[in-house]
């Protein structure tokens, strides 16, 4: 998987372009957003106009500004959760796969059970227990994706564990920690990339769902899922702009990650599930 190779793939290029747009929105929100996202800056419930290109919500706040600032929460939660689950899942997968034995069997069984359970429902339960906050939502989402890393990494470890070069390292008397980190980890990094790209699209949708249920931010913090939830009451009066833009952003960002994932799995030839 050479770098030049990666950017030539149409899926990855398109997906990355979408993601980069949102990352730029999040980083430069202060510059890009024309108004404050939390203050009333116009008449309520106005349709899109030159002053407010995405209209205003029921409190007269500029929806475009809320969408721009909202990208921060989504990206932060998803980045944190992916990093957490990748770290924990990979670590446990490496240890469990390398050591084997009873520990491995118990861990595999527990992970398989979590994996079989509907991920959104598990994330909801965890978020409720931890209390609603962006960090707790990230932890909840992370827990849900740990088994995916665990399963994939453990499988990879099992397949390289008995190769000659690992045996040689063992014969040389290298400590297990060194063997795992220096000799096995490089072999599973590609798998990590595949799982990573696959999970992120899903993580966006899970984050949006948690927000939709009110388990991430508190008002008036802008967040796509939560704004969609609050906007839904106005949809039947034909006030479509309250929900259309946050909804579109969620799907677009998830699509960006899904395209990258599609491209990565095409290049590496790895098929998950």
């Amino acid at each position, binding site marked *: 998987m050479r770098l030049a190779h990666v950017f030539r793939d149409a899926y990855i290029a398109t997906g990355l372009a979408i993601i980069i747009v949102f990352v730029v929105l999040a980083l430069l929100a202060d510059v890009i957003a024309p108004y404050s996202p939390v203050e009333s800056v116009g008449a309520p419930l106005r349709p899109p106009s030159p002053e407010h290109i995405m209209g205003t919500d029921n409190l007269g706040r500029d929806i475009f500004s809320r969408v721009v600032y909202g990208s921060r929460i989504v990206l932060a939660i998803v980045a944190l959760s992916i990093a957490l689950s990748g770290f924990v899942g990979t670590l446990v997968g490496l240890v469990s796969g390398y050591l084997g034995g009873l520990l491995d069997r118990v861990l595999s069984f527990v992970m398989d059970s979590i994996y079989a*359970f509907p991920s959104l*429902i598990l994330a909801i*339960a965890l978020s409720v227990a931890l209390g609603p906050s962006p960090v707790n939502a990230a932890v909840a989402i992370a827990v849900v994706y740990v088994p995916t890393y665990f399963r994939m990494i453990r499988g990879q470890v099992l397949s390289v564990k008995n190769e000659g070069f690992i045996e040689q390292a063992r014969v040389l008397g290298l400590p297990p920690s060194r063997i795992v980190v220096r000799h096995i980890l490089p072999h599973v990094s590609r798998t990590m990339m595949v799982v990573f790209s696959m999970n992120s699209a899903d993580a966006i949708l899970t984050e949006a769902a948690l927000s939709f249920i009110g388990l991430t931010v508190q008002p008036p913090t802008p967040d796509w899922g939560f704004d969609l939830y609050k906007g839904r009451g106005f*949809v*039947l009066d034909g006030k*479509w702009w309250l929900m259309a833009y946050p909804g579109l952003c969620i*799907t677009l960002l998830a699509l960006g990650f899904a*395209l990258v994932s599609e491209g990565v799995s095409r290049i590496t030839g790895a098929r998950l599930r």
Partner: protein
Amino acid sequence: MGLLRYVAIRGTLIIPTILILYTLVFIVLRILPGNPVLAALGTKNIPEEQLKAIMAELGLDKPLYIQYFEYLANFLRGDMGMSMVVRGRPIASDIADKLPATLELTVWSILVSLVIGVGTGYLVAKRRSRYLEAFARVFGSVVFVVFIPALGLALQLVFSSYLKILPTGGRISSIEGFKPITGIYTLDALLELNPRAFVDALSHLVLPSITLGLVISGPYIRLALNNLEAVMSSKMVDAYRSRGIREPKVVRHAFKHVLIPIVTYTGLQFSLLMGGAVLTETTFNWPGIGTYLVDKVMYRDYTAIQAVILIFAFIVGLTSLIVDVVYALIDPRVRY
């Protein structure tokens, strides 16, 4: 006899899975939040005696390990405890009310997604157009990442708000002489030969089941297209063609082979389906256990949340059992 034994063995194997999920749920909802009563009330300013009384009423005053076993034993007997928020309301009867609604929605959604997935595959097989296939693939990827509430609200906007041809939410209008038997209204209407109730229930189902069905149809489309590619380039198809069998008939025969993996995949769709059902129900005010769960989450009704999540755990176990058995029945390579 062989099959019965297979079912029995598979059946026992799901017990540890359910136990692990139960333990997990117990840790998450009974131990993590500290005192669930205080968490539910959202305040620490209540008299000590009152708190103790509530805890005793809900059985939360006993040591944790006793609660762990007692809850499980009660649950298996169908007693899911009392709601923490709506005092004196048994959770089991709430869930019995809501479960048929969720069942009805999910079954119709699976039907919709099968029609979309299999239909797309069939169309691509028949036309054999590269553009159509590329379009179908993109469509499959896009529907997979659609955020359910956004799609649901968009459909409501068009069909309920502008066109006014479909109801916005709920399951049925009040219809004279219609008494639900099973709680699955479309089935009940058929059993009672009540066409008005059937049409009414169906009109309430259209938008939610299309929303959920469309979103879960993504994997079906992909699966159908991938299998199609493999089957259409197989020697079997070459053999059909070389015997001069006309193309439509070849497609018809080949398509049977495309269907088998799709049937087995339906079981794996389950996780996606249940998560999707929670969001779909909330969007359309569909009174199933998904909406119930979200309601309880908003009130931090821990006992009710615990019961709903355990119900899901049981459904997970049951579905995996059914999938195993169906798989054993249609795939001759599986021995039982």
